[in-house]
């Protein structure tokens, strides 16, 4: 490599991206090899397509690594309400991830409306809201309205209260 990447390394090289694709490819290859590749009556077995997919991912992971080694630049995507030049707020990101993970722990134990209130308030916080009680109240209201609309009117099962006490 004699060529220097243009304008210096703006972002550290994301080797892990290539490695992650490679690892996924490996996992799919491993899974595919455990499957029968041929069946007598249909010639092609259930293993062939996953094998192709796994091999494709491995090749793509290697290509991605080569690109990264050559200094490929990865510009964040443009989106509404996004300032791509702003420093990344890890705190906001962490709060948002926590908000989306809340239902894993509370959906069955506390029911949908409470879960909705917690998630809603956490997302609002990630977006810089400082009115926690108000956000919780709005979230609970949305949760109750949605529970009524979806569970009672449309028949999509959402737990109202802790599952053990559910009707």
């Amino acid at each position: 490599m004699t060529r220097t990447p243009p304008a210096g390394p703006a972002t550290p090289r994301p080797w892990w991206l290539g490695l992650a694709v490679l690892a996924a490819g490996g996992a799919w290859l491993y899974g595919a090899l455990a499957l029968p590749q041929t069946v007598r009556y249909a010639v092609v077995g259930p293993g062939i397509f996953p094998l192709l997919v796994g091999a494709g991912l491995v090749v793509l992971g290697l290509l991605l690594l080569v690109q990264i080694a050559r200094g490929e630049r990865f510009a964040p995507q443009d989106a509404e309400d996004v300032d791509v030049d702003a420093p990344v707020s890890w705190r906001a990101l962490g709060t948002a991830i926590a908000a989306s993970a809340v239902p894993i722990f509370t959906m069955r134990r506390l029911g949908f409306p409470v879960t909705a209130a917690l998630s809603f308030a956490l997302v609002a916080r990630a977006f810089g809201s400082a009115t926690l009680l108000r956000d919780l109240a709005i979230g609970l209201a949305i949760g109750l309205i949605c529970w009524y609309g979806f569970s009672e009117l449309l028949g999509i099962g959402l737990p109202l209260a802790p599952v053990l006490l559910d009707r």
Partner: protein
Amino acid sequence: MEALGALAQGFGVALQPINLVFAFVGSVLGTAIGVLPGIGPALTIALLLPVTTRIAPTGAFIMFAGVLYGAMYGGSTTSILLNTPGEAGSIMTALEGNRMARAGRGAAALATAAIGSFVAGTLATLALTFAAPLIAELAFVFGPADYFALMVLAFTSVSVVLGASRVRGFVSLFIGLAMGVMGIDAQTGQARLTFGSPELLDGMELTTVLVGLFAVGETFYVASRFSSQPPQINPLAGGAWLTREDWKRSWLPWLRGTLVGFPIGALPAGGSEIPTFLSYTIERRLAKRPDEFGRGAIEGVAGPEAANNAAAAGILVPLLTLGLPTSATAAILLAAFQNYGLQPGPFLFINSADLVWGLIASLYIGNAMLLVLNLPLVGLWVRLLLLPRKYLYGGILVFAMIGVYGASNSWLELVLMVVVGLVGYVMRVYDFPIAPVLIGLILGPLAETQLRRALAISQGDPTVLVSSPVSATILILSALVFFLPALLKRLRAAAS
């Protein structure tokens, strides 16, 4: 004129009061989500899927079509007033439209966009009316190898056209394909790549993937880089509607945009990016005052907007006649057909004529509704932009969990939603396109079926894949698609 008779029958279906209501609900919902950031037509239709299991497929698809068309109208409103093109197809609209809005001609830009969308949507639907049955007729002779080749073409074109780089486009596609093979193999009953989890025997839930990639991933991304400045909305007041001169300068670009948009949208390599770029370039070449381009030329709004809407109708041609989706939204529509146990393709026109023609007829009706909804009522939609972002994204997450948990009641799906959301976040940060994941996930299993069918017929001889003239031609076309990025780059350079 067989198509006219079928269309008349379709209007009989679409004009039933209940279906008019569905068209109206879809149009309103579509415009709203087109205006709002963070939620698009693909995600909306996916969230509607569980709700619609109990209504007749005709009504559901009429509503989905309203969402699809409405989102285009709403999207042009935001690109003109906010300069934030929500999707690739409205980048060109934002270019000139936003300059017009800043110069106080926002109302004229919105009007030419809305009327242009109406004209293009109606003409393109007319073209769809006559082209679709013919292509469906052709598709009867396609064998499994030909279908497989068509799907390869769709795969390569979405990966090459939609991404910033071909490698990243294909990585996205293969992630989708990899998720598509999970679960029980339909032909042998063998469990594949379930990693020992009985809940994964049904495969990856489409709703979970969509909600994770779009709603959750987008929420993470926007939260981490939230621009604290409130959006700058260009005022609508004071601007005149279309003047006589505006009409004179708009009508030809509308027609030319339609002519460019529909055929390209109908190709498996379609999408809306190329036709809008092309239309913009053409209008700039043909303009009497090219110096106005870059400072708010009305032709630069009228042409690309028409092309965008015509391409949206064009996308329905391969979807309905061949079962081939070429955009994220089309992929969801295909999944919706499968949900109802229907397989788009030539037989759909025979077995479900009422559904297909009712859907096509409803496109005419939906377009007229959208014109009324968007021209006089645009001020109302602009209000939606003022919704505080903290509540908007909070609400999106609540609906996301309803979509994921309500349909399955599965704890694992909630975990997967967060995992896929993180993948969606990483894809946005490192600029991997999202749509190829969905195409891979939904079209992948169908491609596998065709591949195995073709190889079973040939007793395992792989040359069967290239031995028919149709499949060989299509595969050569797929190879040519690799050179599209260079062409796109030239178009982009010509446009700026």
